[in-house]
């Protein structure tokens, strides 16, 4: 379907994920024991035979660039089409960051027009779902729509997280952005299909007059003009923008529903890492967990997700936790309800995290306005931080990245102090 191109918005900071997004774009956050969040959207594209893909990045794009590379993992290293990462750049007359989602599109208009495609899918790089865009594209064609958006029924209590819509047949008649209360039950999923010419025309109208948001400044007016149709999607879909939803969505993939990742007809592709198969030692005991290649397990692991290359030493206990690549839990250490970022080291006999879920404020990063909350009693340790042997902290905590053992011992980098 070369008549469709995809424009993936992957510039978001994801402040509510705290220290996890300190060094990476939200779309590059690790997920599901092996993937990055953007893998779902990119895999949906290629599984739907959309091979013209642009990714607009801005915040901490390195991890994203490294992960995507030339797009080989998705077969997007192509002669015709393929993947292209669009970063802000300086021009003769303007040298600005992307000021909003519509601005990101507008600044790349030449790319949007370069391939003369009939339709443009505007997608988010930070959602977990598996969808065949082909069905939406067919509906769009059949109805000769200008805009089609994917919607899904949600609980009334969730309305404040979504753009809520009402429909008449397939036509969207109302759109309320993140209402606290509403009688609308269909949520917009941030999956938009535009007639390319229509998109370009609207961008020309809106952006030069100082309006930069795709939803507020383009979509809602388009609804008013009666130009927007809805496509109902009933499958699993989750925006993992908050710590708790990230944690719970990750763990919903634990064995009971592992079929989601195992489905081989519509695989989720990702960049492969060269690692040997996982090694289970003679003293290992593992239950209800996801274990990736390259792990070495000599201790006890339950209800947890282990990314490639994780080490769990003898006598160590890991419960209800998510351990990113190459995190190490040394002998007799205990880790409960923790998210350990890449290469975090938990020293011998250290105890981290609390047993039960509870509400807590985890603090915020120094350069951020957003105070990170948890209702799950989570502890989050930033990338490459080293927890000293014997260290104990049994309350929900967020520690900064790159901390030395001494710093941790002295309480430096405990973010709950920052602006709390």
């Amino acid at each position, binding site marked *: 379907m070369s008549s469709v191109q995809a424009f993936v918005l992957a510039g978001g900071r994801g402040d509510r994920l705290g220290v996890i997004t300190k060094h990476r774009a939200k779309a590059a956050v690790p997920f599901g*024991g092996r993937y990055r969040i953007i893998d779902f959207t990119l895999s949906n594209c290629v599984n739907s035979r959309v091979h013209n893909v642009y990714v607009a990045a801005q915040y901490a794009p390195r991890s994203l660039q490294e992960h995507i590379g030339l797009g080989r993992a998705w077969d997007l290293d192509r002669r015709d089409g393929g993947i292209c990462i669009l970063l802000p750049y300086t021009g003769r007359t303007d040298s600005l960051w992307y000021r909003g989602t519509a601005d990101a599109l507008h600044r790349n208009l030449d790319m949007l027009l370069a391939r003369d495609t009939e339709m443009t899918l505007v997608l988010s790089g930070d959602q977990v779902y598996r969808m065949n865009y082909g069905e939406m594209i067919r509906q769009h064609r059949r109805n000769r729509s200008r805009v089609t958006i994917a919607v899904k029924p949600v609980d009334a209590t969730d309305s404040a997280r979504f753009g809520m819509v009402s429909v008449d047949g397939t036509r969207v008649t109302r759109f309320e952005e993140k209402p606290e209360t509403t009688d609308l039950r269909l949520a917009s999923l941030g999956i938009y299909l535009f007639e390319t010419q229509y998109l370009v025309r609207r961008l020309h109208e809106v952006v030069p007059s100082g309006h930069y948001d795709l939803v507020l400044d383009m979509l809602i007016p388009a609804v008013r003009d009666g130009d927007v149709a809805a496509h109902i999607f009933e499958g699993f879909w989750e925006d993992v923008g908050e710590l708790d939803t990230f944690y719970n969505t990750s763990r919903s993939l*634990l064995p009971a529903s592992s079929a989601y990742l195992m489905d081989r007809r519509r695989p989720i592709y990702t960049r492969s890492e*060269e690692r*040997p*198969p996982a090694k289970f030692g003679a003293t290992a005991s*593992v239950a209800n967990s996801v274990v990736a290649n390259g792990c070495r397990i000599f201790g006890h692991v339950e209800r947890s997700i282990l990314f490639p290359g994780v080490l769990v030493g003898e006598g160590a206990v890991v419960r209800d936790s998510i351990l990113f690549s190459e995190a190490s839990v040394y002998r007799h250490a205990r880790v409960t309800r923790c998210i350990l970022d890449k290469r975090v080291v938990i020293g011998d006999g250290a105890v981290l995290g609390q047993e039960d879920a509870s509400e807590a404020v985890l603090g915020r990063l120094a350069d951020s306005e957003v105070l990170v909350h948890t209702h799950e009693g989570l502890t989050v340790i930033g990338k490459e931080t080293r927890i000293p042997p014997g260290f104990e902290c049994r309350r929900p905590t967020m520690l900064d990245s790159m901390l030395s053992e001494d710093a941790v011992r002295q309480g430096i980098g405990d973010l709950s102090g920052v602006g709390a």
Partner: protein
Amino acid sequence: MSDTDVFILVGGQGSRLSVLSEHRAKPAVPFAGKYRIIDFALTNCVYSGFFHIYMLTQYRPRSLVEHVGAGKPWDLDRKWGGVAFLHPQQSFDGSSWYGGTADALVQNLDVLQHSQAEDALILSGDHVYKMNYEWLLRAHRERGSDLTLCAVEVPWEETRHFGIVVTDDSGRVIEFEEKPVQAQSNLASMGVYVFKREPLIRILQELQRDHPNLDFGKDVIPAMLSRGNVMTYRYGGYWLDIGSVHSYHNASMDLLGNEPRLNLFDGQWHVLTTEHNRPPTCVESSARVRDSMITDGCQISGEVVGSVLGPGVVVEEGARVEHSVLMDDCVVRRGALVTRCIVDKRVKIGSRAQIGVAGDGRANLEQPEVLRYGITVVGKDARIPAHQVVGTNCLVDMLAGPDDFAQRHLADGTALRTERSHHPVR
């Protein structure tokens, strides 16, 4: 090392690997979960900086060619050098299959002649080891040898399976005996040779007239002793020729234990292979996994002990897999037992079946020399019915289905063949 050509011999039948190599070349046999045996030699080449590689194929090369492809996982898809397959071919001056390991090179002598390389490195595609060939080449050049052969100490009782090298104090080879009954040394040739290119061409041209089945171990190496300077290069690490079902099983077990003899968790020397896209492994709450190696994509609800599982293996609740190797996408149904088995790809083992349980321990009737060490081998895509019992030293043909199992209990040493496998029973 762009001044060295590498020739990897991957044409052998490997008949002592039983059904594992009946439909694929030995170097293409899956090993250690996600790898093929050939990955070790290819990884050694690229980590040592050798990028001009020729693969001499003959026996059932399809799976090998598919696996290696253009060489992408090893960064061998490159403008200069890379990996090329030298298949037997027809030409104006007749056509023939390769008669022996060195004959394969004789028939591609033009490649050697047109090369600009100074030396030729000759390897086997069916050895498991991690070796830096750069050091070997440096020693070869420093000593100005015409031929340097790599040698490793083996147990005295196994010397009769190897080419045995006798050296003087300087490491010069003074005698070479191919598979001697009474060995004078326990230093075995690993089948890893570096020749100066010119002397190699000369000796191949000289010997080919009288030897249609020219072999490196039998013919070329002994002849070199009287014609040039032949030195040894001692190798001290892990090295295993995966020549038989028994050595395959041993090498697999060498991956296990807290201090494994064969360590794949070597940050400096990650073995490279063609990656398949699989989700991580799921270990259910009913599972027990100990002392095992598990590749991505498995779903484990049962018990796995002392075993190596390839990608996508399913072990259902109440099933037990012990001291076995299960290749890609095998399924072990509820309550089944698999013990001391090597199970090829996509085999389905029915519920409450018991495979590999020893009775009188009789050697296999069809392959008594190969299957006599208490290991049962199941060929790929076989389907073993529920409640079936299969003894030890058994062979189950590839594609065997439920109707091929006439008896509920296959005694030790049984060879179950089926017409579905479309190849002659040896």
